[in-house]
């Protein structure tokens, strides 16, 4: 198990608490009343049929969508309604359904942008002495090379991100998200469109990260991956949370089976 600092050991078990979340847009009630928790050190799954509101929940937490009602408590702070860059500053990093990399930047540059915001990024530093930022820049570069090595992708370090395949872009997006050592990682269908072998490899990485103490909330359709990675799992349907629990518990929950796991919903 991980060695936790005393402070972390005393931190409340619930990192993210979502309460009564609702979102109306264009006459559609995408999310009606979502309430669930994400506990520290877990990969919490978020599953459900198409249109259940899962991506909207991610968008609401990350600030990309405007909420109608509800509250999102993260690590002691209320974050609902803040803008995306403000939410990110709390230590939440998200990935997107379609791999959202910076095409005109190299893979390394992508990773460097992923680091926690720092003073050397201000325009003032750009106009001042290079010494003002080159030290930290060198550290960040070393950190980026580390991440690349861990994923075995040093070969593409200096390739433009737009020249990469879909699976490689997903990896770049993931590596970039890790650069800031986020407290919570929001993953919006990280395996979509990825080959099965690559999906398993990504799954292994995610488990390593969890074992090292990172917390994740992951939207995913592929139920075998969810079973392998996620505990607990939150099931949504028609904009509300149906149930929360381990996959085994959910599989014996009739309502969940009817809505999603049994006939009809899911793949």
């Amino acid at each position, binding site marked *: 198990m991980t060695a936790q600092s005393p402070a972390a050991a005393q931190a409340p078990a619930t990192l993210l608490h979502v309460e009564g979340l609702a979102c109306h847009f264009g006459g559609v009630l995408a999310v009606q009343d979502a309430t669930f928790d994400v506990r520290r050190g877990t990969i919490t799954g978020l599953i459900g049929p198409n249109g259940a509101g899962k991506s909207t929940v991610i968008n609401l937490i*990350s*600030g*990309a969508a405007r909420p109608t009602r509800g509250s999102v408590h993260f690590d002691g702070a209320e974050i609902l309604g803040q*803008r*995306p*860059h403000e939410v*990110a*500053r709390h230590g939440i*990093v*998200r990935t*997107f359904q379609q791999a*959202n*990399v*910076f*095409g*005109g*930047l*190299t893979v*390394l*540059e992508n990773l*460097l*942008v*992923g680091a*926690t*915001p*720092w003073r*050397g*990024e*201000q*325009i003032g*530093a*750009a*106009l001042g002495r*290079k010494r003002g*930022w080159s030290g930290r*820049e*060198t550290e960040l*570069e*070393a950190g980026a*090379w580390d991440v690349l090595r861990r994923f075995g992708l*040093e070969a593409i*370090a*200096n390739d*433009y991100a737009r020249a990469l395949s879909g699976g490689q872009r997903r990896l770049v*997006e993931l590596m*970039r998200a890790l650069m*800031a050592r986020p407290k919570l990682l929001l993953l919006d269908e990280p395996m979509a469109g990825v080959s099965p072998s690559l999906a398993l490899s990504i799954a292994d990485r995610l488990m390593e990260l969890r074992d090292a103490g990172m917390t994740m909330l992951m939207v995913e359709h592929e139920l075998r991956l969810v079973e392998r990675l996620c505990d607990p799992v939150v099931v949504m349907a028609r904009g509300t949370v149906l149930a929360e629990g381990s996959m085994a518990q959910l599989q014996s929950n009739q309502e969940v089976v009817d809505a999603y796991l049994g006939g009809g919903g899911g793949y």
Partner: protein
Amino acid sequence: MSSGLIYYLSGLAILLGINLIAIWGLDLQFGLAGINNFAYVVFQAAGGYAAALFALKPAKAYGSFETYLGGFNLPFPLPLLGAALVGGLLAVPIGLIAMRRLRADYQAMAMLVLSLIATGLAQAQTGLVNGPTGLALIPQPLAGLLHVSPLGYNWIFLGLTAACCVIAWWVARGISRSPYGRLLRAVRDSESAVAALGRNPDALRMTVLIAGGALAGLSGGLLVEYVTAWGPASWLYPETFLFFTALIVGGKGNLAGGALGALLVPIGIIEVTRHLPAFGYPGLIDSLDWVVIGAFLLVFLWFRPNGLLPERKRVLRPGGAEPAGTGLRAVLAGRRAGSS
């Protein structure tokens, strides 16, 4: 070389320098950050008017044949500093109005309309900057103090322009190779990803709009102090496309490309055609210049949209070696080594 030719060339060099500053300023906004600023000439114009209104005496002192605001009769270098300042400040209202999350071509149209509104107001409100007639007899820096020939003054002005170019080069280069510059390029590609990583894309775009605006203002101030007259006819909306064409032809996202563009487009096309034997009626060549510019733009957009000197890849080596950089030396070295 006849003294007439030397005098002409010195003037040409001054104009090259002024255009360099303007083009580097636009490169920051458009080349690095991807802002489709079709109102760019308004920033240059604002700087020009600022320099004029700071340097001129109050209208009454000239017998009120012109009407305008201000007239503070400030000595060099204050009008130029004021020009850069005003150019930068103008970025704030323009940025707040036009930098919404609009589709790229829509946003370009919004900026274009702002440019037209600015021209319209300058012409309609004669009390501001003397309406369509414009301002004349603008005092030149240090003119009264130095007693030199016109050629001598040109050399001095060229020195001043060169100094301003160095400043512009230092600003543009500093931004381009910094983490801030990297963030700008990231915003150009995906502002949602930038926000998801904790940076505010609106703030980033606003700061670069200000920086580019200040350079545009500086170039406007220099132009006005060189030409000593300034009116709406000097900054009609097509002038913005002159700068855009320079970047598309020369290459955006790098200083060398901007410099090449400055040499080929504003200086090259316009100054060279000025010396063709005059044919047709006076002014025909000016119209044809614009047709040529449009043609160049179309041809390059088709064959070489990234320009003659495209943006260079920033290659980073493990172990923290210096990045390959984007300066002229690196460009030439890269060309020789045949890197991608």
